[in-house]
C-alpha cells in the first residue's frame, strides 16, 4: 500500500504553479497587452489548451505506469477532443460564412426593384 512514500507530491505542485501562471498570463494577454483582438483570442485559446493538457497529464494520472497505460483510453479522449473541435469550429464556420446576410437582402431589394420596373412597363 505504501509504495508512494514520497511525502511531497512534486508533480501536483508543479502543475498547480503552471496552471496559475498560465491563467495570469491569459488574463494579462486579454486585458493588459496591446495585441490585436484576433491575436488575443488565438493566444488565450492556445494557453487554455496547454492548461487543459497540464490537468490531463499532471493531475489526472494519464501517464502513470501503474495504470499500465492500456487502461487510459487515449483514443477515446482524443476522439472526444477532435469531435468537440469539429462541432465548435464547424458551427462557427457555417453560421459566420455559410451565407451572407447583406448580400441576401441586397438581392431581395434588386428583385423587388426589377419587379416594380416590370409592373411599371
Amino acid at each position: 500500500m505504501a509504495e508512494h512514500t514520497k511525502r511531497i507530491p512534486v508533480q501536483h505542485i508543479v502543475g498547480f504553479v503552471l496552471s496559475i501562471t498560465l491563467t495570469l498570463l491569459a488574463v494579462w494577454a486579454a486585458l493588459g497587452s496591446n495585441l490585436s483582438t484576433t491575436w488575443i483570442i488565438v493566444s488565450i485559446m492556445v494557453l487554455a489548451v496547454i492548461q487543459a493538457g497540464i490537468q490531463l497529464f499532471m493531475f489526472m494520472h494519464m501517464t502513470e505506469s501503474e495504470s499500465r497505460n492500456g487502461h487510459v483510453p487515449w483514443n477515446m479522449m482524443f476522439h472526444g477532443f477532435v469531435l468537440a473541435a469539429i462541432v465548435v469550429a464547424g458551427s462557427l464556420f457555417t453560421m459566420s460564412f455559410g451565407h451572407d446576410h447583406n448580400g441576401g437582402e441586397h438581392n431581395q431589394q434588386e428583385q423587388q426593384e426589377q419587379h416594380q420596373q416590370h409592373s411599371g412597363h
Partner: protein
Amino acid sequence: MSSHELKSGPLEYRTEQGQMNILGFWIFLGAEIVLFSTLFATYAVLFGRTADAPLPGELFEPGTVLIMTFLLLTSSFTCGISIHEMRRGSVKGLTTWLIITLLLGLGFLGFEIYEFIHYEHEGATLQSSAFWSSFFVLAGTHGLHVTLGIGWAILLLLQLAKRGLTPVTSRKVFIISLYWHFLDVVWIFIFTSVYLIGMVV
C-alpha cells in the same frame, strides 16, 4: 469481482472491476467533452445576439471571474493531493484534503450564484436574449456538474468513514477525482472563451 487480485500497484487498480470501472469513466469523460462542445458551439454562434439586453463586456467582471478560477484551480490541486494521500494509505489525509476540495468547490458555487443574481439585476436573464440564454445554459450546466460532484463526494466521504479504504472505495474516490479535474478542464475553456473573450470583444 474478479477472482485474481493484484498484490501491488495502487489499490484502485488491483481488481479487474476497478480497472474496468476507471476505463469506463474515461469513456464517459470523452462523451462529456462532446456534450460541452455542443453548448460551446451554441454559445459561439449566438455570441453578440444580445438584443436589448446588456452586452457581456458590460457585465463580466475580471475580479469575480478570477477569484472563481483560482478557487476551482486550487480545488483541483487539493483533489490531486487527496489522491496522493490515498495512495500513501492515509484515510485521514484523504478525507481532510477531500473536504478542503469540497469547501473550495462550494466557494466557487457561491460566487457563481452571486454572479447570476447580479446579472439578473442588471437585466440579463435566461429569457432576455439568445446570447444570455446560451451563456446561462453553458455556465449553468458546468455549475450543475460542480453541484452534483459535491453531493457525490459527500456520499463518498460517508462511505469512507464507514468502510475505510478498500479496493471498492478507493476506486470510487479515484473516479470522482477524475471527474473533479475534468470540471476544471471545462472551466478553463469557459473562463477563456466566454469571460476573457467577452471582456475583450
